[in-house]
């Protein structure tokens, strides 16, 4: 059965594993752990496929340690695509990634913007101020954009801030909300349902369809959160 063969087949050369995801998509896994090395390989394969597009590939969905490749099933099959991708994988070493951008996201923490700040502080036996300090203390990596347009998966949180997500997700999280879940943090670009614990909100539009670059953040960026007052939030929002 082709399914089992494909899922068993591991390429020792690149450590990549191929898995049929649907009749028009193929998953490439770089291990099953979130590591910087896996992230870099995802980015390099993504970049190579963007620089030298393959006819018949219709879409790419990067994630922590995998890349989903959607293809035109009328033009090619899984095996043919896998053979092409293996050739690309052999060339990953020659791909240079642009040096990361360092960006800041202003956040007004607590109050109506961060309804879970108090509870998160209580869970860790810290004060809300200490939680804010922790969240703003490190530079995060944009592992990938996914879920909805412009949603950046940022990691890792300082260990003292690692918190499980909400038991029951909220039906509506306002746009700009800054949340944490597990070791991750992120900003909701749109009002959506969501299960991350909300610490604050940014006035920055994370995804602007009329801007030069649609998404404020890109894969591989480095990001810091900068605490601002509700007054500064209002001023920035008016801009």
């Amino acid at each position, binding site marked *: 059965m082709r399914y089992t063969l494909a899922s068993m087949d591991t390429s020792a050369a690149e450590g990549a594993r191929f898995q049929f*995801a649907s009749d*028009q998509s193929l998953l490439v896994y770089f291990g099953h752990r979130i590591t910087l090395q896996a992230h870099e390989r995802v980015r390099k394969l993504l970049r190579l496929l963007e620089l030298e597009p393959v006819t018949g590939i219709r879409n790419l969905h990067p994630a922590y340690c995998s890349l989903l490749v959607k293809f035109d099933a009328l033009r090619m099959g899984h095996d043919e695509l896998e053979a092409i991708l293996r050739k690309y994988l052999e060339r990953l070493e020659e791909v240079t990634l642009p040096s990361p951008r360092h960006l800041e996201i202003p956040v007004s923490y607590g109050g109506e913007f961060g309804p879970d700040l108090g509870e998160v502080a209580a869970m860790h036996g810290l004060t809300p101020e200490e939680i804010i300090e922790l969240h703003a203390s490190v530079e995060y990596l944009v592992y990938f954009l996914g*879920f909805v347009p412009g949603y950046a998966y940022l990691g890792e949180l300082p260990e003292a801030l690692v918190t499980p997500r909400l038991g029951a997700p909220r039906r509506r999280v306002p746009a700009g909300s800054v949340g944490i879940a597990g070791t991750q943090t992120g900003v909701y670009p749109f009002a959506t349902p969501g299960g991350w614990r909300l610490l604050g909100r940014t006035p920055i539009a994370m995804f602007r369809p009329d801007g030069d670059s649609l998404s404020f953040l890109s894969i591989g960026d480095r990001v810091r959160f900068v605490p601002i007052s509700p007054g500064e939030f209002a001023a920035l929002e008016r801009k």
Partner: protein
Amino acid sequence: MRVIQVQAPGLLTTVQDLGREGFGPMGVSPSGAADPNAMRIGNRLVGNAEGAAGLEMTLLGGTFAFPEGAVLALTGSDFAATMDEKPVGLWMSFEARAGQTLRLGPTRSGARCYLCVRGGIEVKDFLGSASTHLLSGLGGLEGRGLRKGDVLKIGEANGSYRRGTLAANALERLSARKTLRVTPGPQGEWFPEASRRLFYSCAYRVAEETNRMGIRLRGEAIPMSSGGAGHEEIGRNASPTAGAGEMISEGVSLGAIQVPEGGLPIILFVEQQTTGGYAKIANVISADLSSLGQLRPRDEVRFERVDWETACSLLIEQERWLASEELIVK
């Protein structure tokens, strides 16, 4: 300039085409018609390119006036259309004379009806497509469903056009399937044998809160572990310490059937999230994706497993048939 005046929008009517592919790296899913086959045929009936923008109506249709007239076609489900009180047929091109009004009612068959207009509907493109993406408020007309009083521009038609009707023998092939054919999902083998058997033997009902992002199902919960202990760890562990066999968020494909905590499957649909952290037990085959667009709340569906070769040949066969000249009788 020809226009469509929206006198009543219906329950949820959006501008759609065949979607925008290629923006997954930004988290943007394609969107586009929920029943692309119906939209493609509608466009062919009015002499448009298959991917021209038209209107997608949901469960209850709208009322539209054509002050300068238009060449139209309705495809998909039967929404009891009338033009100035006279019934109008599905799957055929027809003309609205200047000043006529097209009225649609509640569905008499599936979930969606398409209104295609010769020249297409002109809206500002977003990433190369007219499709509305409701969740993000992008594309289509201001990223939203139509409202009373909206005025839509009809594009310039080019090329020749002759009135056409769908071939009689095509209707049966277009009827929406309630037994959806699937291939195994990328985590299909994570589910115990008993869970998989349950999934393939049970009937599920489409839940009320189904939308263009996902089709939620009600019925037998699918246990992840043989003990039926639930799904506490699934989808929660996007952590660096997650070991092999634990779920880390990954790219998800259209028609993926994910099993979240609680065990009730969700089929990811046209406005899908681009990545997700739940295990996927199966994936609806490409040839059956249009059928998903016609599922109504409370409809009963079942899943039937097919092999990869069958999925592929069913798609090739469907495409050949959709592209054939005989499909439309002039």
